[in-house]
């Protein structure tokens, strides 16, 4: 399978026909058993592809960073004219009248939207099994989950059903499936990428992020989607840098891979390895030693507040979700079944039918946590814990350039294995959720396998040091497994 960088070069030079490339991808999707996509954008995409082939030599097209690159979009991101369901029955048939900011940016740079990928309903899950449209399967083993919630995006990239993909990450939703499917996935610093158009699960935690088969492609996609956006008040506006113009000069540089890593100080927090399986532990330590071989130093450190991360994360996420999901009443868009009765009966019925079990569970828990008398005990306390965790990361990253740890404590589990036990699924997120609480950037890259199933290495950096973790990941990618 080609990388995005190869595709762009090939299309611009005429060596690759965009239409042919895209047609092959659609053929592969048609034959696939993975169930990566909820909605395909075939006709419109092919039309765009023909246009790209025709006009590739025009100056305007020449400059596009992702000219003709077929990209898969997670179904939590609004796409004008393409059904966007968040994998929920309640949004069946909803076609957004507007594009998310990241989609505008992708179109501007010539990317072509293949379709909308499967996910856990409203991003609530770790396995893509809570989707109303059926689970996505792991491309390495069809009996296993691809991880979640951006399972469709990760599986599509690995299986060649897309060159690039966008995911969204609230508590690990990009990194977990990247780890389980063996691709690269990046969650940016909170406020790095505009959330305008991302259907909110937990606003204060989530980010849209790139997923790709290589670190370089990941960086390229990040460059495109990190445009400055006045419509997102939580995007951090960097002075004299509009748009953000995130450039990876090192991508085309002459430096050797080891230059990226030489002198880096790596922290390995032992709490993040404690619950991991033996194979995962081994792979991660092997990776750390590879870094050492490339000139980095490492130190084992302790982050004691990790044990509070899950409780804090789930309280905050569920509280915000209970409010975010209140808008789905069937009145203006989405599911509207049966006969209308009075307002309360009608919207209760629609919500009862439209939401899946996990979504209902989180709405109920979140509603409870925000209720009068419990707010201070749960929500406020969770926010305080969050501040502690953030501080702990900041401290650890004062003395270390990056932190290394497993993305997931184990490899992809079997479909149906954990879905009946929500708590065991929540526990699987232990290494990823703390990163969202701290708001720091983190990348997951493949670092080995156990019985044919990929293992992910998570590299965490300081706020707004996406560049540094990408460089580390790149150096490792070139020398690692």
């Amino acid at each position, binding site marked *: 399978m080609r990388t995005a960088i190869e595709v762009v070069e090939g299309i611009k030079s005429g060596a690759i026909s965009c239409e042919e490339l895209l047609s092959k991808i659609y053929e592969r999707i048609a034959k696939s058993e993975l169930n990566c996509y909820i909605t395909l954008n075939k006709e419109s995409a092919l039309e765009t592809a023909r246009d790209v082939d025709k006009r590739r030599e025009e100056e305007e097209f020449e400059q596009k960073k992702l000219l003709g690159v077929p990209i898969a979009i997670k179904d939590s991101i*609004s796409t004008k004219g393409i059904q966007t369901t*968040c994998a929920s029955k309640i949004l069946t048939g909803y076609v957004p009248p507007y594009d998310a900011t990241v989609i505008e940016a992708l179109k501007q740079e010539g990317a072509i939207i293949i379709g909308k990928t499967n996910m856990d309903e409203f991003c609530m899950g770790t396995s893509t099994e809570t989707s109303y449209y059926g689970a996505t399967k792991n491309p390495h083993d069809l009996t296993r989950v691809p991880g979640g919630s951006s399972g469709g995006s990760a599986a599509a990239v690995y299986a060649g059903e897309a060159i690039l993909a966008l995911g969204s990450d609230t508590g690990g939703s990009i990194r977990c499936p990247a780890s389980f499917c063996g691709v690269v996935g990046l969650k940016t610093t909170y406020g790095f990428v505009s959330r305008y158009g991302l259907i*909110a699960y937990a606003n204060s935690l989530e980010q849209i992020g790139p997923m790709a088969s290589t670190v370089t492609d990941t960086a390229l996609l990040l460059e495109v989607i990190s445009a400055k956006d006045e419509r997102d*008040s939580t995007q951090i506006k960097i002075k004299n840098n509009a748009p953000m113009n995130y450039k990876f000069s090192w991508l085309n540089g002459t430096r050797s891979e080891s230059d990226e890593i030489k002198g880096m100080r790596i922290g390995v927090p032992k709490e993040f390895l404690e619950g991991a399986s033996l194979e995962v532990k081994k792979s991660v330590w092997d990776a750390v030693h590879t870094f050492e071989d490339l000139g980095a130093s490492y130190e084992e450190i302790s982050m004691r507040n990790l044990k509070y991360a899950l409780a804090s994360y789930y309280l905050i996420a569920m509280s915000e979700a209970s409010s975010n*999901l209140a*808008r789905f009443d069937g009145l203006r868009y989405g599911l509207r079944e049966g006969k209308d009765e009075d307002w309360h009966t009608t919207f209760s019925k629609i919500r009862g039918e439209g939401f899946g079990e996990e979504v209902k569970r989180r709405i109920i828990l979140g509603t409870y946590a925000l209720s009068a008398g419990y707010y201070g005990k749960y929500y406020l306390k969770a926010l305080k814990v969050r501040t502690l965790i953030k501080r702990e990361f900041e401290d650890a990253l004062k003395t270390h350039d990056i932190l290394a740890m497993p993305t997931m404590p184990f490899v992809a589990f079997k479909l149906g294995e954990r879905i009946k036990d929500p708590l065991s699924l929540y526990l699987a997120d232990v290494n990823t959720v703390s990163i969202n609480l701290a708001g720091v950037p983190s990348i997951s890259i493949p670092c080995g396998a156990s019985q044919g199933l990929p293992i992910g290495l998570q590299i965490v950096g300081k706020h707004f040091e996406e560049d540094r973790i990408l460089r580390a990941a790149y150096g490792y990618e070139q020398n690692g497994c």
Partner: protein
Amino acid sequence: MDVKIGLECHAQLLTKSKLFCPCSTDYHNAEPNTHVCATCLGLPGALPAVNRRALRYGIKIALALGCTVQPETIFYRKNYYYPDLPRGFQITQYDFPIAFSGLVRIESDGDDGGKEREIRITRVHMEEDPGRLVYKGTIDTATYALVDYNRSGMPLVEIVTEPDLKSPKEARIFLGKLRSILEYLDVFDGNLEGAMRVDANISIEGGERAEVKNISSFKGVEKALYFEITRQRNLLRRGLTVQQETRHYDEVRGITLSMRTKEFEHDYRYFPEPDLVPIRIAKYIEEVRREIPELPDEKKLRFIKRYSITREHANSLTFDIHTADFYEDVASKRDPKLSATWIADVLKGELNYRSISMREASTRISPDDFVTILTYLKTGVITDRGATEIIREMLDHGGKPEEIMEKKGLGSIGSEAIETAIEAVIKENESAVQDYHAGKKEALNFLVGQVMKHTRGRAEPKEVRTMLKEKMER
């Protein structure tokens, strides 16, 4: 029994765009659901971004009400389900509003006889307006409701008072004063439909408080409060308790009805809006303070001092900024006292009679027109009646003072013509003249009336009286 009233006043701000999106606020005559976008429709994924101008207007109001503006302000979500609320929550403020503790001075008339009273302002905060439900027929008979989201996301400022008001009438006076101040600031237009909506809290000594929600007129507030006093007094008189509850005001029937009691109060689950960051507003305060014009209280004192007019006139002229500006324009060119009388007593009376505002009237009658009328009056070209006639004609049909005077023949007649009329009247009313000579003073009034009739009102009664007397005494 002591009555305590506190108000929560929601005023729509005159910004060009809505509070959190670029949609136009000019929807009052528009088709339903035409001034909407992804954000104010609450479409999935759309985010709010605060309109800085609305924020500045809010700060301006807070400063004008003497509040302490906070250095930082935070928006919250208020969660509840209602079809006019597209996100299932309203973005409003909670623990960190833009301002706290202000003061409004009112002149309470009636029993207290023009006593000045201070009404404390608890807080000022910003929030978005929900959409609007439209019922076919009445709310009771309609089988369905339609939703218009044009209003959704309109910027509102909520002004909350302490329970310092003592009567429904005082509540109305307060609301009038508040409207006056907001209009002075040029951030509000009370003439727009639904521009100000009020929740009124009222309690009587010995009972809990009731909150009457969403009353859309000042008169409605007064009526609802009178109704509540009667209702609560009756309960207490019969030895029953007044429950804490939320009530609805039925404008048609002029009564309040229970919506829900305390135990069924909503739990709004307030929490900070995660899509908006805390906003530092300290930097705006001094800048906005400089934009605050002279306010009604200051203007009133200045008018009294500078133009030597009565307190009543000054009150009347400064109540509305457009009237005040109109007056100052006229008073700078003609006798300020005469101007005050004619604007406060005559012009405002004519406007009230026609239910039009000074601002609307300004397209029909300009300060310069008014100066012309006063000039005619002062130089005796027209009489009081003529002047009134011109004003009425201008308001009803337009035109210029000189044209109307010509067309209607309103010009005063000269003293020669008056003399001719007097002679004729004396001749025709011999008995009345005799009565006058016999000492019956009323006869003079009768004769003056007859002369006025002869001249079709174009003579000045005072002048007629003097001339008539002279003639008969001779």
